[in-house]
Structures are given as structure tokens and as C-alpha cells.
């Protein structure tokens, strides 16, 4: 065993309050806890019943995103909430934050948005932090060299009450992405291809570190897209070593270190790299230069194919069941399928560069007759920035709907749903049965592919539209 450490090991070691033993997990300190209305009410109830306060309100970042409507509104009382349950959840979150002294980034704050969009854009997400949220896509924050993972509601209660979690140290998986991504192929295509290669359980029990030329060349938003979908390979977390791209992104953001603290932070962050000679438990290599735009054809994100390649076949009951649900046959390319709905948004692809990518394809075009396209910014700030750049005008001129921020049609619990049997090309992260609505057929893709498909009216190669 060498003393050389991986990035993960460095962040882990720095947060161990009590080391693990054969009998007990480590007690791990959490630097940032992001909370939303869907996975926290039961945890706040536990605190209330036990008479416990939130231990560190200053390290707790609450917002509203999952069950909130995306129809235009001026205030919460005007909201067309999906149902009484959703409305009650939002009200209870507001009450919980008031009762426990938490500063809710809610309606009117100008900073509300999807948990994994606002953490980074506020500069609260930083290299070397431990970050958790009652949401599996917490792996997104690992793009900054944080150790970030999703937790259940019981654990949300643990963090609210103690700022700590009981954790066994996971294993490490190195993903080397060599070469350069070809033109028209982006971060979403890369992560879909990787999940296709290692499977939806390829990362179970592991923290992934993404490395290599293609990762280093990516901007922060692309890195977030990659880390976001680590959980779709079953991984606990995904991480990328921070570098000048990371520091440039964070500098000047409201919750990033300021003044003299900034220089000290950067000096500390520069140490957060895997040492030469450090060992990973597993390693996978992928050649970025060979990748193409990717689309899913089945009911999990590993059932993925290059846009012009035929859907593969497999002699397996689960595989057949998935294709049957999707009404898709092996042997034909996905480009033969017509599209009913296109969704651009979510914690995977709801950032400004994603909106820009979709708008770039849409510009000067109209979406096909019969296609419904929703573009949902990831946060108030993304919405504002997109409108300042006139992207909303391009989107609405093309015939798509420009909405209020939220998780929207990715999880379909706010009223934005795909109808039974409809085929949706979606920039979100899960194509599970019923994920976007009962009987909805989801094809995961990049914002460019989604926009191209909206114009074509069938699943389309974005390289023909740029």
C-alpha cells in the first residue's frame, strides 16, 4: 500500500469525525446539506417529535423544485399546483424552514431552482466539500471535486440533527476518458455511452473519478452533466479534480470564498488531485473520439445506442419486456421513430449552456406539427440569464413553451407529464417505465438531439441541424 491518495480519499479523510471500525461505520461530517420539499417533511417531523433543532442552519440550503408547477406565476398563491398534496408539501416546506430557522430560497428569492443547479450557481458547491441531499442526483456536485451523494429521508434527519452521517467507505472506480469529443457530441452523449458500457450497476458500491483529456477540456456545466448521471451507473458519487476551469467558474459567486479567503481556498483546492501512483479499485477507459450522439431505446439508461445505429437485440426476458413497453424493435435505428413530446431541462441538462445548445439548433426553425416542446430552465438565475440573451424568444418563436424553473417533466410530479403511449425525447436522466407519466416512452438524449428531434418530428441527429 502506498501513501498516495485518490481525490476521493483526500476528501473522505478530511471529513472523518470518528473512523470506521469492523463494527461501526465512520461518522462523516457534511459541509453542505441541500434540502427540498419532497424528501424532507418526514425528517422535519422526526426533529419536531424529538424536540431537536437543525444543528447547522448555516450549512443547510433549502429550496423548492420537485413538486412546483412551471406555468408562469407571480406568486405562490397564483400557482397551478398539481394537486392538494403538492400544494401542502410546498406550504409545509415553507413552514418547516420558518420553524427551524432556515433561509429558504423560495418564491420571490430570485435564487430558487433545482437543488443541483442552484448549489453550483450560488458558489455553495465547492471543491473538497462533502455535500448531500435527499436526491440521488446529488452526484452532480462532484464536478467541482466535492464528495457528493444522495441520501434517504432518515439520513436527511441525521444530517439536520447532527450534520453527520454514518458511512462505510466506498470503493473507487477510475473512468479515463481519452481523446477529444467530436463536433456535435457532448457530455450527455459521453455519460450515456459510459453507462451503456458499464451497465446500470457498473458503479454500485463505488465512487467514480472521471479523468483524462476529454474531461479536462470540458466546461463546468458539461462536467456537471457527466457527474449527475453517475448514479445511473449505480455509483455512490462521481468526482472530477478541480482545476482552473473550476476556479474560474466559482470566482465571484455569492457563496464562494471572497477576498483573502479566495486565495487560501484556491491554494487548498489545488491539492485536491489524485496523486500519481494512487490506486483505484477498478478502472475503465473510454475513447471520446469514437463517440456519436447517443439515445436510449429501452427503460433504463444503459439501454442506449448511437443515433444512427440499429437498436441491438438480446435474448433476455427483461430486455424484451423493455422493448415491448417502448414499442421499439431491434434492428432499426431510433431515427425511425416519431416524437410527440420534447423536454429540455432537469438537473442533468437545465443549465444555461444546455438552453443555449437547444436554442442554437432551434434558431430559425419551427418545431414539427403535433410536437409539444417544453424548455424548463433549471433555476431563476438560468431563466433570467436566458431571457437576457434572448434565448426565450428563439424558443417561443420556434413554437416551444418557455417555462418557470423546476424539475418538471423529468419526474412528472408537478403536473408536467407525458401522456400514455407518447414518445418523449428528454434531456433528463431516467427513462424508467412511467417516469414521465403513466405509459410514457422516454428517449434520453442531449439538448441538441432533443431540439433537432423537435424540428424533425422524429428522433434526429443534431449534426444535421447545426
Amino acid at each position, binding site marked *: 500500500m502506498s501513501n498516495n491518495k485518490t481525490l476521493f480519499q483526500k476528501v473522505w479523510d478530511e471529513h472523518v*469525525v*470518528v473512523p470506521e471500525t469492523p*463494527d*461501526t*461505520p465512520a*461518522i462523516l*461530517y457534511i459541509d453542505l446539506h441541500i434540502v427540498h420539499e*419532497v*424528501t424532507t*417533511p*418526514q425528517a422535519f*417531523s*422526526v426533529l419536531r417529535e*424529538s424536540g431537536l433543532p437543525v444543528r447547522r442552519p448555516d*450549512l443547510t440550503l433549502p429550496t423548492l423544485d*420537485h*413538486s412546483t408547477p412551471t406555468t408562469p406565476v407571480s406568486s405562490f398563491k397564483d400557482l397551478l399546483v*398539481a*394537486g392538494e*398534496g*403538492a400544494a*401542502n*408539501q410546498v406550504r409545509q416546506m415553507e413552514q418547516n424552514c420558518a420553524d427551524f430557522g432556515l433561509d429558504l430560497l423560495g418564491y420571490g428569492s430570485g435564487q430558487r431552482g433545482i437543488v443541483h443547479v442552484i448549489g453550483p450557481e450560488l458558489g455553495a458547491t*465547492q471543491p473538497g*466539500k462533502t455535500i448531500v441531499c*435527499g*436526491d*440521488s442526483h446529488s452526484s452532480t456536485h462532484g464536478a467541482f471535486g466535492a464528495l457528493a451523494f*444522495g*441520501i*434517504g*429521508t*432518515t*439520513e436527511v434527519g*441525521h444530517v439536520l*440533527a*447532527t450534520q*453527520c452521517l*454514518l458511512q462505510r467507505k*466506498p470503493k473507487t472506480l477510475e473512468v479515463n476518458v481519452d481523446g477529444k469529443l467530436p463536433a456535435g457530441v457532448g457530455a450527455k452523449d459521453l455519460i450515456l455511452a459510459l453507462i451503456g458500457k458499464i451497465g*446500470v*450497476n457498473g458503479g*454500485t458500491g463505488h465512487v467514480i473519478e472521471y479523468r483524462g483529456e476529454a474531461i479536462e477540456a470540458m466546461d463546468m456545466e458539461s462536467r456537471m452533466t457527466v457527474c449527475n448521471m453517475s448514479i*445511473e451507473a*449505480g455509483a455512490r458519487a462521481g468526482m472530477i479534480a478541480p482545476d482552473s476551469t473550476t476556479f474560474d467558474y466559482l470566482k465571484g459567486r455569492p457563496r464562494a470564498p471572497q477576498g483573502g479567503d479566495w486565495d487560501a*481556498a484556491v491554494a487548498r483546492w489545488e491539492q485536491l488531485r489524485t496523486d500519481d501512483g494512487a490506486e483505484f479499485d477498478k478502472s475503465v477507459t473510454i475513447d471520446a473520439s469514437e463517440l456519436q450522439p447517443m439515445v436510449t431505446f429501452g427503460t*433504463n439508461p444503459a439501454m442506449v445506442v448511437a443515433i444512427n445505429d440499429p437498436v441491438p437485440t438480446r435474448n433476455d*426476458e*427483461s430486455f424484451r*419486456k423493455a422493448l415491448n413497453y417502448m414499442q421499439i424493435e431491434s434492428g432499426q435505428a431510433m431515427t425511425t421513430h416519431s416524437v410527440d413530446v420534447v423536454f429540455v431541462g432537469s438537473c442533468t441538462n437545465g443549465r444555461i449552456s444546455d438552453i443555449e445548445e437547444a436554442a442554437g439548433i432551434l434558431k430559425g426553425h419551427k418545431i414539427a406539427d403535433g410536437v409539444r416542446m417544453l424548455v424548463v430552465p433549471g433555476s431563476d438565475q438560468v431563466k433570467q440569464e436566458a431571457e437576457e440573451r434572448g434565448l426565450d424568444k428563439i424558443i417561443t418563436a420556434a413554437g416551444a413553451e418557455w417555462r418557470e424553473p423546476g424539475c418538471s417533466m423529468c*419526474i*412528472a*410530479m408537478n403536473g408536467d407529464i407525458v401522456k*400514455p403511449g407518447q414518445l418523449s425525447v428528454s434531456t433528463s436522466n*431516467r427513462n*424508467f*417505465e412511467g*417516469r414521465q407519466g*403513466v*405509459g410514457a416512452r422516454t428517449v434520453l438524449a442531449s439538448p441538441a438531439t432533443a431540439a433537432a428531434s423537435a424540428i424533425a418530428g422524429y428522433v434526429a441527429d443534431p449534426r444535421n441541424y447545426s
Partner: protein
Amino acid sequence: MKPIKQVRGRTVVLPTRDIDTDQIIAARFLTTTSSEGLGKNAFYDLRYNDDGSEKADFALNQPAADGCSILVGGNNFGCGSSREHAPWALLDYGFEAVISTEIADIFKNNALKNGLLAIVIDDVTHEWLMSNPGAEVTIDVAACSITLPDERAVGFEMESFARYCLLEGIDQLGFLQNASSAIESYEEKRSWRP
């Protein structure tokens, strides 16, 4: 939490692999602020037709599934969303244990914290259970073993602390609270402040 030393019951089999937590409890049922009463919506879209009638061919709807308390699932059970509503729904439905060859990390954590046994077993035993729905088995938490109907006992691994908490009925929040002095001294001595 009540101590759980042993679970004895009959199995029901859902052979599909990669059963995700969206299938266990769909997102539209998450607009609740309680952890109770979710069982009626467990596997809803697999259990019911559009008109609300039961899908006759779904395993849970067959008469043989009545009273079964152990769910045997295909490989990689519980993947996807971190929603703890998934184990809450399975417990409320009447399940006491889930068995597969692989169980997703977050689901497994959530399940064990709620007293739903999440048991990972070897391929051979799994294959036997998949082909023998309705088998009466006993899961012994202390011994980390499953006893099959022919009295054969098969071992499994369970994280030692989770097992201890199940056996003793220990609330992990209490365990963390007992570490409060260690947490305070960690906060004081760390070299940078988050």
C-alpha cells in the same frame, strides 16, 4: 424501531432485473408529508390497468401471493431514485424482506434503516428462489443465513452495524447524537470552515 431477529415467510417473485424505485412507488405518489399508507400504491402501474382493475398476470395479484412477506427480485433491485418512500411502501404493503443478487446502495441503506431486510445472496440460491415462488424460508439476522424449505441454510453478508441495529432495535440517530462531543471537537479543530 422494534428489534428484528428473524423473518419467516413465503416468497413472491418479481423476476425482472433492474427494478427501479420509480416502479416500486411512482413519483406522483410522493406528494405526501407522511411515511405511512404508501403500500396501496406500491408497484401501482404494474398492478393495475388504466381502469383501476388488477392486472391478472402480475405476480402480486395472484392468489398465491396473498400473505407473502418476502420479495425475491431480479438482479440490481431498487436502483434509481433515493426516495425512502420505496421501502416505506414495501413495508406498508406487508413485505419484511427483499432478496436479490444485487441491491442498489441507497435503497439498501434506506431499507435497513426502516427494518426492511435487504438481503444479497449468491446466484445459485437466487436462481432456486426465482424458480420456486411461494417457498417458505426463514431469514436469521444474527446468523446471517436463509433456511430454505429443505432445511439447507445459505449464508449472506450484511453490514455489521446495520445488522446490530436490526437485532437490538437501535435508532441510528441516537447513535450519532451520542457522538456530539466528537462532532463539536471536529468542528473546532478543522483547518477550514465550510
